[in-house]
């Protein structure tokens, strides 16, 4: 087992970043616990990479404080901070062997030669590249290069590991494999890790907590389950997974009107608004045989996507088209086909409600 110092705690307080007049980050407050893997997730341009670069000291925040453990790192240059980083491009030094790449950071802190050698072979063993120590990066596959970059970042035992879209340059199969590998390595080492990604599946699969960002602000922080099941905003709801949205008018505290019907909600309405957005995930809509449900509709199209069938159903009494995911077995039982009439229920515990 490879030794690793305890991962550090990171405190981000009131961080703002302006590029000229453009506000890239607005009042970011976030605490990352020791040993945690946190994903910054959001569309491109949401500020997630800027935040990562501020944590690394590669960008300077316009305002705000950063603490790593008890140390104030707000104004420290990158070389005085304690982190390892893996870039999207890996930025491996092409003129050095795999072993020299991994040893680079150990040599800069003046570690004696024998220790460098043993630490390098230890790390290469961890990432499964013992046999490739004398090769050059260009002679390795993309996935192998990624692991070298990881080993190089981890070699000096940093308290914090930063990953900037580390998997996006790889093809799907290697990506899935490396995902679980990175996760188990991170758990084993206990290093606090921040990963930036635009891939929601990656974030949900790997993270202890996900930070969803949009337009320079944090929309929601939570476990993957919380993010998916209780999205805090319409943006989060639409960005993570698929979601049906439709407008409705509030009737009172916990009732809304859709078409001619009134629906009960589990949670109270956001505030007094004249119009709210209701949302429901495609897999939460219950399809029932014709005549058995509350709403009637007609199947418009069916896309077979392997594990489920993405079905579009047009409701007859309101101008509304819903996307419904049905597993193939239920679809057979319902004799689902394009043009068929079906009924459906919208379970109130699956209904989300957002300010319009």
């Amino acid at each position, binding site marked *: 087992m490879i030794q690793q110092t305890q991962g550090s705690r990171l405190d981000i307080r009131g961080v703002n970043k302006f590029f000229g007049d453009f506000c890239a980050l607005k009042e970011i407050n976030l605490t990352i616990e020791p040993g945690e893997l946190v994903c910054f997730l959001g569309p491109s341009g949401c500020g997630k990479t800027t935040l990562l670069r501020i944590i690394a000291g590669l960008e300077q925040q316009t305002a705000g404080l950063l603490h790593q453990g008890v140390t104030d790192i707000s104004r420290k240059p990158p070389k005085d901070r304690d982190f390892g980083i893996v*870039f999207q491009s890996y930025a491996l030094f092409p003129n050095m062997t795999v072993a020299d790449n991994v040893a680079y950071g150990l040599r800069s802190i003046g570690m004696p030669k024998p220790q460098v050698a043993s630490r390098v072979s230890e790390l290469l063993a961890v990432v499964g590249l013992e046999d490739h120590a004398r090769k050059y990066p260009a002679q390795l596959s993309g996935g192998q290069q990624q692991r070298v970059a990881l080993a190089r970042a981890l070699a000096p035992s940093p308290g914090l590991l930063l990953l900037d879209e580390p998997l996006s340059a790889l093809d799907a199969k290697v990506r899935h494999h490396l995902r679980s590998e990175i996760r188990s390595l991170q758990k084993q080492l206990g290093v606090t890790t921040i990963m930036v990604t635009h891939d929601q599946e990656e974030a949900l699969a790997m993270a202890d907590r996900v930070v969803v960002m949009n337009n320079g602000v944090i929309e929601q922080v939570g476990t993957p389950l919380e993010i998916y099941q209780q999205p805090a905003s319409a943006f989060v709801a639409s960005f993570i997974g698929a979601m049906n949205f439709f407008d409705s008018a509030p009737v009172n505290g916990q009732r809304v009107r859709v078409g001619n019907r009134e629906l009960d909600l589990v949670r109270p309405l956001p505030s007094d608004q004249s119009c709210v957005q209701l949302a429901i995930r495609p897999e939460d809509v219950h399809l029932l045989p014709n005549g058995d449900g509350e709403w009637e509709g007609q199947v418009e199209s069916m896309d077979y996507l392997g594990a489920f069938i993405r079905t579009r159903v047009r409701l007859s009494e309101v101008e509304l088209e819903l996307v419904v995911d049905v597993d193939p077995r239920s679809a057979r039982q319902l004799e689902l086909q394009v043009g068929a009439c079906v009924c459906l229920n919208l379970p109130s515990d699956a209904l989300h409600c957002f300010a319009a």
Partner: protein
Amino acid sequence: MIDSPALSTPSSHNRRPLSAFGQRFAGRWVFALLLVAGCAVLGLLVLAPLYTLLSKSVENKDGEFVGLDNFAHYLSSGGIESAFFNSLWVAGLSTVIVVFLAFMAAWAITRTRLPFTGWIRGVLVLPILAPSLLPAISLVYLFGNQGVLKSWLFGAEIYGPIGIILGSCFWTFPHALMILLTAMDNADGRHYEAATALKASPWRTFWTVTVPGARYGLVSAAFVVFTLVITDFGVPKVIGGQFDVLATDIYKQVIGQQKFEMGAVISVLLLLPAMLAFVADRYVQRKQSASFTARSVPYKPSHDRRRDAVGALMLTPTLVFIFAIIGMAIYASFVTFWPYNLSLSLNNYDFGRMDGGGWGAYLNSLQMALGTMLIGTALVFFNAWLVERTPQPRLLTGVFQLLSLLPLAVPGLVLGLSYIFFFNHPDNPINFIYGTLFILILSSVTHFYAVSHLTAVTALKQLDKEFEAVGESLKASRWRVLFTVTLPLCLPAILDVALYLFVNAMTTVSAVVFLYGHDSQLASVAVLNMDEAGDIAPAAAMAILITVTCAGAKLLQGVLRFWVDRSTRAWRQGTE
């Protein structure tokens, strides 16, 4: 290594934001200060002399401000009609011919499957190794009063525009060819496949795919050739006869009549078209975006005998012309006494018997070229590295980019003249370098700075932009990353820049012709002086000697590059 103790000690005791701030930026200040120093050096080498030149052009002999009197005087003397317009049309016509020939050659090389294209490329760029005086001398032997092919001109004189245009075409051809080859080498095969799939004829494909793909190269080549011809002094000096152009006019005013202020006036007039071409070229380059992306498939010409034949036909005149010029110069340099005693001997290489500095001048040239190479390469790369790979205030990099490209717009003669004004001024504290080899080195470094800078910047831009960030996360300073990663990766580009500087310093006449002193005569200037004294054969011999030296340097550089490529093949594998 960058934080000074004065800054880091107090900040470890208290955490006042200011001292932490100081620590954070201590590293950056060092780099910014270094770039400020770089700007200052370039300012001293380019801006200050140019300013002195401009102010000279509005002063009389005694240094009193006279406004535009000098210009008025030059205009009324008729110089503007003759020299200025002569320069324009000669340069314009040469540009059209060279770009046309170079485009045909580049097409033949990149779009056909002719054999030996490596050798053909080698021959086509040979003129770059020769001083611009060589084609002029050669043309005198071919078409001059005692020329072997005089009858081919049907009574027309080679001494004049015809000679200038032919000579200019010879030595500017490689410049245009290299730009066009770069533009046409990276053709996207998909475009050609699409044209074929859409049933376009070869002729239509040529006009709709090949030409548009090369358009920026064509424009750029045209600007470069125009500037080179209009600012060249060697060819018109040797073969121009009574035909005045701006470049020879400056020389006559300064060397012949010692009218420095008139030299300054003509320099300003020469600066105008050169600056205009420079600005226009920059503007066009800015619009150019990379059409060859990672997704492109390199174009591979298909087998087509007829197209190969057309290609060979297009290359033949240029190849014959180049061989004829170089061959004639070599032959003439060995002929004992043209045209009376055609037996071959080494008499003309006995430079000790002639004026012009003899072998001493050649050794001076070698020293000067080596000095330019070493100082220039180091300066160019260090500055380019500061601009590209260290954190810099945007304003500072903007200023530096401007300063580093400015020499491209300054003709050699103008630079040389402005160096006289600036460095020979009695109040200049470093005027002791005037007349030494060192000022020749400085002027050459400056003269050829821009192209070297662009080469270095291109090489540095190709490196992963996160190398320094990774280095810092691994506690390595930018300096360590520079020496362990950046420099090894840029070695091929460094060799290219070194060769470029050596060859140009060896062959240049224009900037140095005003600056050499009694103890710092140069080979290229010796060619000029011997030609002027009527020793044309020794002039040819010296020109050939310079060419052979440059070819030797090129060969050495080729060997070094081969060695570098071989020893780094392992880590380049897969990337090339």
